[in-house]
């Protein structure tokens, strides 16, 4: 009996596992990067100097997470692409962020609603991933989860303030919530990558995550006197590279310098 067919199968299996892990880490990194870029669009425009700094701090945390995650994804990919190549030299269909992250800032209330929905998701996700079988990923998220706890404190605080604030602020965040809610189904819709990572004990079960996310969301909405929109089951496919038209415009600005002057440094 020859050993080589089994060895080849093992190699194949290892390659498939590595590719799936690469995709998985890339998705996490892309979501942080795109959300961080969106937040940084507020710099110089926030309603208060203090909020300007606050949003910039959040953006920096997220871009820091993206650097670690994209760097790891690049290593797993093994094609010599580093974090910068992945961030600045890919086109929109190659980005695998959650569709919610790329939605435009709108007014301050809308930015807060988007942030809060994703903070709740990242908080549950990172807490679960801290126990991942992949130790490198576990180490990255263990740092990120501390940052995310603060992000959640910031965004949930503002959500309650605006929701339970004036008539106008309540109206605005409720409208933003109603508009952004359709992107939340994707947060917990597993595809084959999620399933294979869960089977390998690298990623948590999205179904369990969804119920914890949902109770946190309901509790905050009650404090903010906001109504939970009706479930909209159609999941967007941002993590598979199918995006709304907004991502391309955002990348146009984000990648402008590297695309115009390839390899520019300063």
């Amino acid at each position, binding site marked *: 009996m020859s050993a080589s067919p089994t060895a080849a199968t093992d190699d194949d299996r290892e390659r498939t596992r590595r590719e799936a892990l690469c995709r998985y880490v890339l998705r996490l990194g892309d979501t942080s990067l795109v959300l961080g870029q969106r937040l940084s669009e507020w710099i110089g425009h926030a*309603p*208060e100097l*203090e909020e300007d*700094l*606050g949003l910039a*701090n959040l953006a920096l945390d997220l871009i820091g997470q993206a650097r670690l995650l994209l760097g790891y994804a690049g290593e797993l990919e093994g094609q010599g692409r580093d974090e910068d190549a992945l961030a600045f030299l890919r086109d929109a269909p190659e980005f695998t962020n959650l569709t919610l992250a790329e939605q435009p800032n709108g007014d301050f209330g809308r930015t807060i609603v988007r942030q809060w929905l994703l903070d709740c998701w990242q908080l549950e996700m990172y807490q679960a991933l801290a126990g991942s079988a992949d130790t490198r990923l576990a180490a990255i998220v263990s740092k990120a989860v501390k940052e995310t706890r*603060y992000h959640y*404190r*910031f965004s949930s*605080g503002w959500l309650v*303030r605006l929701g339970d604030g004036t008539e106008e602020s309540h109206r605005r965040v409720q409208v933003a919530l109603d508009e952004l809610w359709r992107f939340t189904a994707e947060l917990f819709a597993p595809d084959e990558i999620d399933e294979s990572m869960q089977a390998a004990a690298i990623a948590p079960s999205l179904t369990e995550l969804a119920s914890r996310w949902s109770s946190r969301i309901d509790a905050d909405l009650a404090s903010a006197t906001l109504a939970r929109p009706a479930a909209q089951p159609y999941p967007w496919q941002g993590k598979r590279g199918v995006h709304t038209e907004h991502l391309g415009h955002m990348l146009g600005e984000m990648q402008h310098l590297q695309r115009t002057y390839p390899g520019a440094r300063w």
Partner: protein
Amino acid sequence: MSDDWPLFEVFIRSRSGLEHKHVGSLHAADARMAIEHARDVYTRRSEGISIWVARSADIVASDPEEAEALFEPARDKVYRHPTFYSIPEEVKNL
């Protein structure tokens, strides 16, 4: 919005420091937001491990007009400084 938000004074205790030191002031809607703003504005470079905030309006200050009456009398009482006492050799860490 700043017109509606009260001013808070911010005090930070550094990693090595024993006391909170006044570092500046900022606007916030309430105490919770003031702590968050203070964290974002004044501890970005790991300056602190504890934050106090207090409404500026709640701080009672001495009147500069009364500075003479309050502080001048202490000026010529140099004997209040402990430099006139010789310290016995047995006493350490004074």
